[in-house]
């Protein structure tokens, strides 16, 4: 029993568990059990079919590319927001939150309008031979947009808490700026940076709304796993939809475990240093 003089433990915990059970766990259990009815052989046939494998490959590769882009951009944004003073800093800080607040479908139509051949960006990029809308690159852009805040918001507080002592010491000892970053600063922010990247990757794997408008949705080329689930549903092939969705759910669980492991490591790291 909890040792606390406060009341309401049973009520609060009971409500929380009952709600999570009905709203979150019941549907996920129904999804996983649906695949049991189809048998292992058919499950494997469905999730290793050519089109499913291609969709998984497209999803993972574009999510990796979007995460790599956000790793660089997120670090630069966090760095600029913490260490520099410049006009419009508050505005830039507020802009970082836009992808969390803007609905994914709205982001999808807006990015498509920008990158289409006649759009503001597309009309400049397509003459150079860079096709973004209705191409794999468009998926990367959409995923990068929706997951942009994760790396920034993970790294920012850690960067903020660095006092500058080690940097001064390193400089006194004759280290150059790049050396200081690599050997002094980056190790400090690395756990938070990694946690941000894994969150961004997990979000990108499951992204749907922003992607389907800009992707072009060609099977084998620009069709993501989430869309294939949707297509199987529209074909009334519920078992295939359940099987592919279960693989996505398993991937989400694995990413959740990895993220939690990083967070734990981060706590231990913070205590040690």
């Amino acid at each position, binding site marked *: 029993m*909890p040792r*606390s003089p*406060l009341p*309401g*433990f049973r*009520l*609060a*915990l009971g*409500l*929380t568990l009952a*709600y*999570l059970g009905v*709203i*979150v766990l019941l549907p996920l259990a*129904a*999804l996983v059990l649906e695949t049991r009815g189809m048998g292992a052989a058919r499950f494997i046939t469905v999730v290793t079919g050519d089109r499913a494998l291609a969709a998984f490959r497209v999803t993972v590769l574009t999510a990796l590319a979007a995460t790599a882009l956000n790793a660089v951009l997120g670090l*630069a944004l966090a*760095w*600029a927001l913490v260490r*520099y003073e410049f006009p419009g800093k*508050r505005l830039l800080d507020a*802009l*970082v*939150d836009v*992808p969390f*607040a*803007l*609905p994914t*479908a709205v982001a999808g*139509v*807006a*990015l498509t*309008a*920008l990158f289409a051949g006649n759009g*503001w*960006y597309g009309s400049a990029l397509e003459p150079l031979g860079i096709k973004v809308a209705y191409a794999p690159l468009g998926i990367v852009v959409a995923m*990068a*947009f929706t997951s942009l805040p994760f790396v920034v918001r993970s790294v920012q507080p850690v960067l903020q808490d*660095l*006092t*500058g*002592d080690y940097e*001064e010491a390193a*400089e006194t000892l004759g280290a150059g700026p790049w050396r200081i970053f690599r050997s002094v600063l980056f190790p400090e922010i690395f756990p938070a940076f990694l946690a941000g990247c894994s969150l961004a990757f997990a979000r990108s794997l499951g*992204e*749907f*709304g922003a992607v389907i*408008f800009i992707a072009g949705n060609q099977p084998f080329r620009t069709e993501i796993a*989430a*869309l294939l*689930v*949707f297509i199987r*549903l529209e074909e009334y092939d*519920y078992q295939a939809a*359940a099987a592919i*969705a279960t693989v*996505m*759910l398993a991937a*989400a669980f694995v990413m*959740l475990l990895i993220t939690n492991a990083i967070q734990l490591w981060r706590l231990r790291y913070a205590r040690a240093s």
Partner: protein
Amino acid sequence: MSVERRPRVGDSLLARTLILGFAVLVAALLIGGPLAVIFSEALRAGFGAYAANLSAPDTRHAILLTVATALVAVPINTAFGIAAAWAIAKFEFRGKGLLIALVELPFSVSPIVAGVAYLFVYGAQGWLGPWLLDHGIKVMFAYPAIVLASLFVTAPFVAREILPLMQAQGSAEEEAALTLGASGWRTLWSVTLPNIRWALLYGVVLTNARVMGEFGAVSVVSGNIRGVTNTLPLQIELLYQDYNSAGAFAAATVLAAIALLTIVAKIIVERNEPARAG
């Protein structure tokens, strides 16, 4: 902790220019661009056409349905968030880490997966579907399913905003209130909630924005019936596929405005709670 901060080793002018230039340019292009294009496309044919697009019957219905969904889903998830944060922040118990992970689980699950999962509970071939059908209760492809899917997707937001603050504040003030004879509810209402009001406000506003903007999960469970079960994001998709770009972007401005108001709320919250910003 800004008191003890010393001037840091400054970056060279070149590094500073490159990093700041890169960050500002990409943020402006990737985030500012989409915001600008929404309003530019919506107003392309003038304000009159914009107003006409917004008041088209199906779009108006979608706005009403979206508001009706938020009116039910936001209070429920706010109550859930407060209950979950109360249990996690004020008590020690085994399995707490697991409970936190469970509360955050919907963040990691693709909205499409959530939508499909609901289909296997409430759909005609789902666990409860046949029973519901026999009793004439329509859940799937109707308003209840839209609310349920929205509840799943936005369950963690309030808890996540208020939990760190409640953990940091501890229980001393609540214990004092109880000693003075206040009931548990009175303590929650007069001590705990006022202490977390700004974080709670932002959690509620963010939950609202996410409920109103949810697309993937709702698109699976709503059935996409024009003028009946289309929420605003689904209506945007529909108009866009009809090549009615002006109509789609007019509808999008409503959701973009809600997103911008959400961010304004966050700025207000951070102003009032400087501890949060640091």
